[in-house]
């Protein structure tokens, strides 16, 4: 009997059941409360509903049913650690914390415990260097990719010339928001645009000063690295000061329905990055029919098809594909966390496979390797249509400027390796 079960017994006077074998256990460190609960809920719903669909439709993956182990973190790092410790005894296959803060806590822990972690488009960018971070994956793209994709999009809008332009970065004043700064600085040097930085203290209720400054300086473009209420207020304030929405681009965590709904029609034309194309995929109908209507949905179904829901579902699909790959490599339907890692490192996502899964074109094609844990790094630009209340993809997937990002990743990974005494190498 583990101490965890002892704790349970002591606290409640009852014995908890031990982990059931012959199941694929996926912990979901979700947050449905707290300042970011409105963002965490649809993501988690999508993540869980996809696994529920696999259970209902295919009997799991490779004949093994999937069990979700949800744990509420409230976007709080301490609760995240508690959740990790509480769930890791259950033979989990992959962690997915949806919080850059929690990711940083877990990076050393998952390496020590040998459990893979997937941080899709968030977390520590340099974890793309798989030789230094063998247990951490951040495919299909990283923050630095996002910054570069945004700049590449602007380049294409301006005939490949941004010299003399000004770009303002308005960011969440936290680890998450500061991530793109270094890349954008490099890119501003390379392309000759001026970068101004406007930090917003979380949660970001008050942004009057920042937007008055934008109104006065009239930068050519505003890029936003926001999360939670900051996004809503920023879009509202941008509308208030009359900043043109089509010159305002959020990253992929600042481009979901809750962000634009509060501003109503004023948000029309706002752009954001996304690593997923938003459209009505056949798989969504299957989820509605076999999961939601069967009463097995993680939420009430109202989120199905929203940006963050689709991203959660996409994340689940990537995990499911990695499980299938791992089963194939291991030659058995039951896999361990280490085998899961091998599956993730050998993951290959093709257009054909996505179409087969009923989500054609949802993400870029990419392969993962030991040297590259971040996939292709591609992202697209989408635009909010306030009248129809839909996000409309504007572009196809745009490739980032790897010549700028790769040296930065190598440098940061080397610093981490040196600080922590890691000898980089493939497992």
């Amino acid at each position: 009997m583990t101490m965890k079960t002892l704790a349970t017994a002591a606290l409640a006077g009852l014995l908890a059941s031990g982990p059931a074998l012959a199941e694929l256990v996926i912990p979901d460190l979700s947050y449905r409360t707290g300042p970011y609960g409105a963002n965490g809920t649809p993501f988690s719903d999508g993540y869980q509903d996809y696994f529920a669909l696999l259970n209902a439709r295919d009997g799991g993956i490779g004949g093994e049913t999937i069990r979700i182990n949800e744990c509420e973190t409230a976007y709080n790092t301490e609760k995240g650690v508690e959740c990790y410790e509480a769930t890791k005894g259950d033979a989990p296959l992959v962690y997915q914390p949806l919080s850059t803060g929690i990711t940083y806590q877990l990076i050393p822990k998952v390496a020590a415990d040998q459990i893979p972690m997937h941080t899709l488009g968030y977390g520590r960018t340099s974890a793309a260097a798989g030789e230094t971070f063998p247990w951490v994956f951040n495919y299909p793209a990283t923050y630095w990719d996002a910054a570069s994709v945004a700049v590449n999009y602007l380049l294409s809008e301006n005939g490949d010339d941004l010299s003399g332009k000004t770009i303002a970065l308005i960011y969440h004043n936290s680890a998450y928001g500061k991530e793109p700064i270094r890349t954008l600085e490099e890119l501003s040097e390379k392309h000759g645009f001026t970068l101004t930085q406007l930090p917003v203290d979380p949660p970001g209720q008050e942004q009057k000063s920042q937007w008055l400054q934008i109104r006065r300086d009239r930068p050519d473009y505003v890029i936003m690295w926001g999360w939670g209420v900051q996004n809503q207020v920023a879009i509202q304030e941008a509308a208030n000061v009359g900043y043109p929405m089509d010159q305002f681009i959020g990253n992929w965590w600042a481009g979901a329905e809750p962000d634009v709904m509060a501003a109503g029609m004023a948000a029309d034309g706002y752009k954001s990055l996304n690593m997923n194309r938003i459209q009505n995929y056949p798989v969504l109908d299957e989820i509605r029919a076999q999961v939601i209507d069967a009463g097995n949905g993680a939420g009430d179904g109202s989120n199905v098809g929203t940006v963050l829901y689709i991203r959660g579902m996409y994340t689940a699909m990537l995990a499911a594909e990695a499980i299938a790959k791992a089963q194939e490599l291991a030659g058995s339907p039951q896999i361990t966390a280490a085998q899961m890692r091998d599956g993730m490192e050998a993951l290959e996502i093709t257009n054909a496979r996505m179409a087969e899964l009923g989500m054609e074109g949802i993400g870029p094609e990419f392969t993962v390797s030991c040297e590259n844990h971040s996939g292709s790094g591609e992202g697209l630009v989408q635009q909010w249509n306030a009248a129809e209340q839909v996000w409309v993809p504007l572009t196809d997937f745009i490739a980032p400027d790897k010549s700028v990002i790769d040296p930065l990743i190598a440098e940061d990974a080397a610093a981490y390796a040196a600080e922590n005494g890691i000898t980089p190498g493939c497992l």
Partner: protein
Amino acid sequence: MSADFLYMIEVVINGLMAGVLYALVALGFVLIYKASGIFNYAQGVMALFGALTLVGIMEGQVPFAHIINATFGTDLHQFGWTVPALLAILLTVGVMILLAWMVHTFVFRHLVGQEPIILFMATIGLAYFLEGIGDLMWGSDIKTLDVGIPQGGSLWVENLSSGLGGEDFYGFFIDKLDITASVVAILLVAGLIAFAQYTKQGRAMRAVADDHQAALSVGISLNFIWVLVWSLAGMVALVAGIMWGAKSGVQFSLSLIALKALPVLMLGGFTSIPGAIVGGLIIGVGEKLFEYTIGPMIGGATENWFAYVLALLFLVFRPQGLFGERIIERV
């Protein structure tokens, strides 16, 4: 006039507008503190709770839908009607009064005579409680609150003033929502003062604020007065919640506006209504001006701490606050 100078003035005007909203939140604190000595940390959560309730009523949401559905296996979400804004506001005021009664009856009536810090802690407990209840009742997703307040920069002001500066000056930017909020706040304060001056209950309220014992001895019911001030504070919170909620949507972060009111209270004093108003204006202008002028030099995002540091420095040199009298200590 140079454009730089005009932009400075614009920042000051916007600071004043923000200050009015801070003052509004601070006012809720002052009302309760004056009458009962309770430093009500839950004021911010009350604003959130009020706004959530208002949206819920307007949209005909079923309260506690999640729990009901989870317990009985039903699929309730909406009553299927919508309520006009004005009626919904009135109904919400009713809910706030009920809340005030419950808060007093179940909590603070049992804590009369306790040390201030104990009362303060109890209000933090209340804040947690209300936050959880609000989420359980109405769900934790972001809600849009639209009671018909106009938003966006006032073009009239912008056009009128754009001639003042040169090429680089685009005219003053003043948000219509801020104008509305200022007008509502001023009306509310005027109403409160009138209530306190000219009604029987208002006079009783002031008597209690002055001296509990004396008020008791002339036959004023303390319980009634305390429920009354909690109700008034609830209504002030509701107004603050509506103004803020219209801007950023109704959601958890709304409760953090309490933190904006604390430096205002330090500056203006916990017991002074004019102090709350003037303090709010000073804080609003001060933090915006600092962020605008000094902020870019030291990396920005200074507003959170600057208000506190300003209030702190002020108090170090004038411990009695803005309107307090010089304290003569006795033994």
